[in-house]
């Protein structure tokens, strides 16, 4: 399966999905005007991946900012991952957040409540964020 790598822009995150290296990561700022347009290839890739997923993997969110129009898409992504887990893979979500950003921590807790996947909230020290 071909890796999906999208470089970050000022208002869209970096996407790094690579089955060969078992790495699945969304990082940066997710503030697109039209989140459906940006995330369509991301959702498509994950849907293909869910047909023959890795047997064990971590899915990582490393976000500085995201808008409400991205928040629904994140739930769609997590729902796909939940199905993958139900079909037998071992899946864990790693939700990294700036240790000074309690709102980002709470956002992770909210998703944890909505989804039946082991969810680890990981505080990190961030010097400065950019967009």
């Amino acid at each position, binding site marked *: 399966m071909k890796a999906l790598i999208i470089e970050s822009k*000022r*208002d869209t995150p970096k996407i790094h999905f690579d089955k060969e290296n078992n790495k699945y990561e969304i990082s940066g700022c997710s*503030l*697109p*005007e*039209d*989140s*459906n347009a940006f995330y369509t290839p991301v959702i498509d890739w994950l849907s293909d991946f869910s047909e023959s997923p890795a047997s064990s993997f971590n899915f990582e969110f490393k976000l500085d*900012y995201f*808008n*409400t*129009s991205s*928040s*629904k898409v994140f*739930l769609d992504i997590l729902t796909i991952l939940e199905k993958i887990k139900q079909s037998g893979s071992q899946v864990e979500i790693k939700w990294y957040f*700036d240790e*000074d*950003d*309690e*709102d*980002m921590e709470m956002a992770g807790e*909210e998703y944890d*409540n*909505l989804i039946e996947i082991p969810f680890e909230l990981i505080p990190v020290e961030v010097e400065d964020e950019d*967009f």
Partner: protein
Amino acid sequence: MDLKGENILKEIIHIYDDLKKNRVLLMHHGDFSQDIIMSMMSLTKERLMFLEDKKIVRKRLLNVLIECLQNITRHAGKDDLEDVFNSILLIGYNDENYFVVTGNVIKSSEVEILEGKIKLVNSLDEEGLNGLYRDIISKGSFSNKGGAGLGLIDMAKRSGEKLKYKFNEIDKKFTFFTLETNIKRIKI
């Protein structure tokens, strides 16, 4: 204020004085394309660096900013270009708070629904806002435009205070909508 001809030379100094006196951090009058919104975000972030608040304050303010500006773009009556180019953003501050204020033209027919959403948001406490947010994102009552009031809920959560708003009817078809969100300052 008349800004035509020679008057503009006399008036600009007053505009400048007013903005300075009222501690305006940033003001923009015009349209809010995604490019302009992102530039506003960068500019605001840079200026906030001088004001020595905790990082969470800056994050909250920038999150409120993106939501209210993308709301304007979403609901702009694109059939009336002059109005699209006449939105306004003002970010001001005092010792306790930041104020993010936007003003834009919306269709008068949308006033009732919008006011309903704001009233609902203002009637809820933090737990209520979280519950409503959860309901909306998980039940998918959510348009491509991202509406459903999710932006307003997020703004109210970040603020911790009620949203302030005003509708000024321009004519039967159009109304000027002003929205203010306060963000409490926390000094380093």
